[in-house]
């Protein structure tokens, strides 16, 4: 057996991809109402460009950028602005949001197409991407055009498309690669062009053989692009782990992928880039995996940005009686929801509803027995055990001295902990108490 590319350590959680992996992407109903937070991305929030009572069309900018690291937001339906106020979002914060009631017509503005998109200049591409409001769709939602504009002293030689989708349950990227492989490859080529890079890679975990096959046939004839089957291991899709697996390069501590000459983009982002550059379509919808034993009919749905989770869940048959937890994103790094009246945003890769049988409480945890399991799995080579102990005792500076800020909260340590300690909670607490 040939050795597949991967990183050191990591865990093998139950993947449960079978719930939704076979479900083709279906179009969600046109929502009657959307709630569009002005901040769905990392960076400065967008500034509302509409007033209550304004009529808007699909694709119209309703919030504009306020800085370099920022992203505009668009209306994903046509209708009337009915409110601009703080609403709950899936990360637990109240964020200023623009509420639009649909007029049912779904009228769009005219989009500027570029059939000859490969002749556009790098700057033209970046401007289109910025204006389309494209951000990283794997979950972190970092503005894509910023990632494509590295400082001059950084030489980028490689673009990697992240199709690992290592979060259990989620199948959105999987379905995109199976159903739209050609578009993903075109998106990659546009990204490579915008960076002036000759080398492209697509990394996919081996539990998606149909996606690997589809992508491999889509790249036939592309000499500079390679598909990498990756070992099935969490967190294979973390940027640093993916770069290590594909290129063997280690992003330095506190550094970014560009420090080793790499830009990583998610599969969904590549597709959005293609649609924006080729058809002039802003980021108005995304694939959301609705899954878990707590949902009646797991689906992969193309959902308009701003659609309420409750609306999406209803279209999937609603929650079962034993549903205990609703998560935005995957089970390892997603956010638990206290209300279902939060909108699907650009970074919402999944809505996961856990039933009682899938949920393990960490209310009852005990002292660390120093078994070292967390040290054996930490992809960053940290000592999560000591971090959790320092944080528990309030020794936050000691935690910092033990590389607290290298942790990206993948949750592998908490997953394996036999004492069921809430490791990520301890680590976040410590991070909130000291400066990096």
């Amino acid at each position: 057996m040939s050795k597949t590319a991967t990183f050191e350590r990591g865990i093998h959680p139950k993947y449960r991809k079978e719930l939704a992996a076979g479900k083709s992407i279906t179009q969600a109903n046109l929502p009657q109402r959307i709630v569009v937070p002005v901040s769905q991305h990392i960076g400065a929030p967008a500034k509302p460009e509409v007033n209550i009572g304004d009529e808007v069309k699909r694709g119209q900018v309703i919030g504009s950028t306020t800085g370099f690291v920022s992203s505009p937001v668009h209306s994903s339906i046509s209708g009337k602005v009915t409110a601009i106020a703080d609403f709950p979002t899936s990360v637990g914060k109240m964020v200023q949001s623009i509420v639009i009631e649909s007029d049912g017509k779904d009228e769009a503005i005219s989009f500027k197409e570029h059939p000859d998109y490969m002749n556009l200049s790098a700057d033209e591409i970046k401007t289109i991407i910025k204006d389309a409001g494209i951000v990283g769709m794997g979950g972190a939602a970092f503005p894509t055009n910023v990632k494509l504009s590295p400082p001059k002293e950084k030489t980028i030689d490689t673009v990697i498309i992240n199709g690992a989708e290592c979060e259990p349950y989620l199948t959105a990227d999987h379905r995109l690669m199976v159903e739209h492989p050609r578009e993903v490859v075109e998106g990659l080529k546009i990204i490579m062009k915008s960076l002036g890079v000759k080398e492209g890679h697509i990394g996919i975990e081996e539990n998606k053989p149909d996606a690997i096959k589809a992508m491999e046939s889509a790249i036939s004839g592309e000499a500079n692009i390679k598909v990498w089957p990756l070992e099935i291991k969490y967190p294979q899709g973390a940027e640093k782990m993916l770069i290590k697996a594909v290129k063997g390069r280690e992003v330095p501590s506190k550094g970014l992928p560009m420090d080793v000459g790499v830009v990583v983009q998610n599969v969904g982002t590549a597709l959005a880039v293609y649609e924006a550059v080729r058809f002039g379509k802003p980021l108005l919808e995304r694939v959301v995996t609705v899954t878990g034993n707590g949902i009646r009919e797991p689906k992969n749905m193309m959902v308009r940005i701003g659609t309420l989770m409750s609306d999406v869940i209803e279209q999937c048959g609603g929650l079962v009686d034993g549903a205990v937890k609703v998560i935005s994103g995957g089970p390892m790094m997603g956010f638990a929801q206290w209300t279902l009246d939060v909108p699907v945003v650009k970074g919402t890769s999944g809505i996961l509803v856990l039933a009682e049988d899938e949920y393990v409480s960490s209310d009852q945890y005990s002292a660390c027995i120093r078994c070292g399991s967390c040290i054996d799995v930490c992809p960053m080579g940290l000592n999560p055990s000591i971090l959790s102990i320092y944080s528990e005792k309030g020794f936050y500076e000691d935690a910092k001295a033990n590389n607290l800020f290298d942790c990206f909260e993948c949750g592998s340590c908490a997953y394996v902990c036999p004492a069921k300690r809430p490791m990520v909670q301890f680590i976040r607490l410590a991070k909130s108490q000291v400066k990096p």
Partner: protein
Amino acid sequence: MATEAKAHELIVSVSPHVRGQETVARIMWTVNLSLLPAFIMSVYYFGPLAAFVTGLCILSAVLSEHIYQTSLKKKSTIGDGSAFLTGLLLGLNLPPSVPFYIPIVGSVIAIVITKLLFGGLGYNVFNPALIGRAFLLISFPKLMTIWSEPTAQFVAMDAKTTATPLGVLKEEGLAKLIEIFGDKTDLYMSLLMGSRAGSLGETSAIALLIGAALLLYRGYITWHIPFSFIATVGVMAWAFGGQAGLFTGDPLIHILSGGLILGAFFMATDYVTCPSIRKGQIIFGIGCGAITMMIRLKGGFPEGVMFAILLMNCFAPLIDRGVKSKKFGAVKEQKEQKK
């Protein structure tokens, strides 16, 4: 819709939202199970009294933990199997014919003084069972060094007393030891099977190795501590243990006798009292091995595994501080600093 969320009483907590199957209790009970072959062999060689001694240790360990915690209105943690394990290990570390109060005193010292007063499982500095045994050895030196002859077939009620192989080796030398067992092959076989004098659970290397294999297979222990511990003992026995000068010693005798196999696989590997980082565990194992051989060859006791592990327990936190696992992205960072 908000009402629906309420009707379902959604749980909100920090990620990750799924957890692995492993629990402290599952680990501890598996370790208990892994000691079953050694326990059975102890009864086989030393008779019903062996079962009584070990049983009494377990009972007193579990009871003292339960009584201590309930009387302080704390949650009793006897279900996690760790008090049971401490009792079991203490029992397997006692001579076969101790009076009834020895197991009780040892277990109370192990559980209450060594573990609970330090804060309970996870906070103890020393291996509880070994402190219990050390306390007994120092307080009752005579009772703790009466060794019965193994008589097999589960029956021996009052066996003859004799010396342990390490005792003979220390006092009378290798030739005498071989003479007692017949020839060298017989000696090795006896040590492997367990037909020799010693603490209840330490004699049968083969039974202990079966249990150790289970723990290694399940990933509850790794090779680092047992291997470095045993290898150090072997090398030092070979280098310094011979009567004809350097590098003439017999490593196998030292590896198979005394409490080395029991100590290296089941006691030195105690999570709480050994280093957590694998590199540190190798240092820990080498330290245990070196101290064991210093005591065996030059010290006042014929056996040194217990004191070696306890002494190295003190160093475990220090080792963990000194040996850092290599963090991701660290190499580049150092290079940049050099520039």
